[in-house]
């Protein structure tokens, strides 16, 4: 009988702690599949963030380290400078990357660090229980924005891809979503492209993944996917924001 699908060797058999309907699991799988297909599982080093993905290194079947909150790009810089031939990736949420760690991600991109960042944007702090994130949509409720995010008081969401794409050190920046099978396939292609950018030594690459957090959004998994499609994608348009890989090659 022909084998149509097998679990990637890039994931361990450890049961994840993610909530039902959370898309972290999908994104983990896509990263692991890409690294496996590229033959890089023996060479890959993951830098896990503080946040829901702090335990990602237990699920990835390759090397990993847990960074301090927001500092994954700095820690990845240290690793990559020591091992320029390894595949080094950070896997960060929106609180980790776009709030406490904004300085580190901007400067890693500006330096053109040859690392790949997987940026999970679900508009909320997941692990701490649903507080407002820098990416929380206007009007969206959070435990620290119980009346909904009021932009006159709490400011506006940050569009990370748009911002980082202005930096010359950024070589491949794309925003994807995992709200439908078609978008999951596109997301995988984007992650593969970012990892290829790193492998070619071109510079910094980042894939922002619009993701769900049904638990903290107070939605069912189906409603959560719908929220990504109807509310998040219009505010955070999908697409390639930076691709200078051709010029560099």
């Amino acid at each position, binding site marked *: 009988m022909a084998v149509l699908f097998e679990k990637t060797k890039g994931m361990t058999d450890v049961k994840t702690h993610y909530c039902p309907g959370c898309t972290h699991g999908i994104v983990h799988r896509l990263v692991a599949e890409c690294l496996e297909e590229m033959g890089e599982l023996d060479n890959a080093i993951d830098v896990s963030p503080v946040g829901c993905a702090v335990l990602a*290194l237990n699920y990835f079947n390759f090397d990993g380290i847990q960074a*301090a909150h927001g500092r994954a790009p700095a820690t990845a810089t*240290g*690793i990559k*400078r020591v091992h320029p031939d390894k595949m080094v990736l950070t896997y960060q949420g929106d609180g980790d990357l776009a709030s406490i760690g904004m300085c580190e991600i901007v400067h890693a991109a500006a330096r053109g660090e040859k690392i790949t960042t997987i940026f999970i944007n679900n508009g909320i702090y997941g692990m701490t229980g649903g507080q407002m994130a820098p990416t929380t949509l206007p009007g969206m409720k959070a435990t620290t924005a119980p009346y909904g995010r009021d932009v006159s008081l709490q400011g506006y969401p940050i569009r990370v891809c748009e911002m980082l794409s202005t930096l010359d050190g950024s070589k491949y920046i794309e925003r994807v979503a995992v709200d439908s099978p078609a978008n999951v396939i596109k997301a995988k292609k984007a992650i593969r492209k970012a990892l290829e950018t790193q492998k070619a030594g071109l510079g910094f690459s980042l894939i922002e993944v619009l993701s769900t957090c049904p638990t903290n959004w107070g939605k069912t998994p189906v409603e959560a996917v719908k929220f990504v499609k109807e509310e998040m994608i219009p505010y955070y348009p999908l697409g390639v924001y930076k691709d200078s890989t051709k010029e560099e090659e």
Partner: protein
Amino acid sequence: MAKILLKGNEAVVRAAIEAGCRYFFGYPITPQNEIPEYFSKELPKVGGTFVQAESEVAAINMLYGAVAAGARAMTSSSSPGVALKQEGIGYISKAELPAVIVNMMRGGPGLGSIQPSQSDYNMCVKCGSNGDYRNIVMAPGNIQELVDMVIEAFDMADYYTNPVVILADGLIGQMMEPVEIKQPEVKREMPEKTWALTGKNGGEPHRIINLNLDANELEQVNIELFKKYAVIEENEQRYEEYKMDDAEYAFVSYGTASRIVRSAVNELRNEGYKVGMIRPLLLWPFPEKAFEGKDHIKKYMDVEFSMGQMVDDVKLACNDKHKVEFYGRAGGVIPSVNEVVDFAKKVMGGAQ
């Protein structure tokens, strides 16, 4: 090897490169700027990498990555910058990784001054991040000691898989003395870095963990850390005794302050006072052994460039707080020999 004249900050770089350090991550701050500047010039010549980080916080976390990857690497800063590094130092300590951190102390608190000070004793010796952990802390009193300690710090860090802090001050950083760059006298058998992030290369993944959600598991991590610290406390107490043989009074001082105290001891000896000095070379582990069998010492006179920080450890080590007197100048003010002599005479009374 012939002696060469080196400024303290430059000596750090020469010593680190001699020790095999090939990665430096840092951020500018006075009075240690010659360290990143000289590293940026020298590391490319030996196939190393210098990164000017966007902040002290980034620098210590780059160091965390580099040492996790198995390299010999370091960072340096001065007091406010080292304050920013504390969290990262805690992470490196928890992960049991070898790292070297140089602190050329300046006056505090807050932004403070840029003059030499010793007011980071508590931050560096007692450890300024969250949780229970210890760092090995070395306190050079001259440039040769600085060189020797930096070189040995890399060995100690690798041997104990623990951060080592070189706690010096702006005076050590800025002054020049003739030095010899040489390998450490203590030769240690270095453990292989089997834990390093190098890619799993067909084996099991290397995982460097900083989070233990299970309280019992984390307690066990703490217990294991403190087993290691007990070994370090047993093996690494180091101090100099200066004119202590017949001393009835003893100064306790470290680093640059001990240079002034040494002159004060000489002056007081000329006047007939039976006085000496205990000088800790490592501040953690604190040299408690130096205070053993010294019940005959009438007073310990602790002199620091601070409002009094090591003095607490002196009280514990001699086990009699009533025997301990303190004199210090703070904020970057350096006491004169005469001031120290006057302080001592007040303590000793007419006890010539």
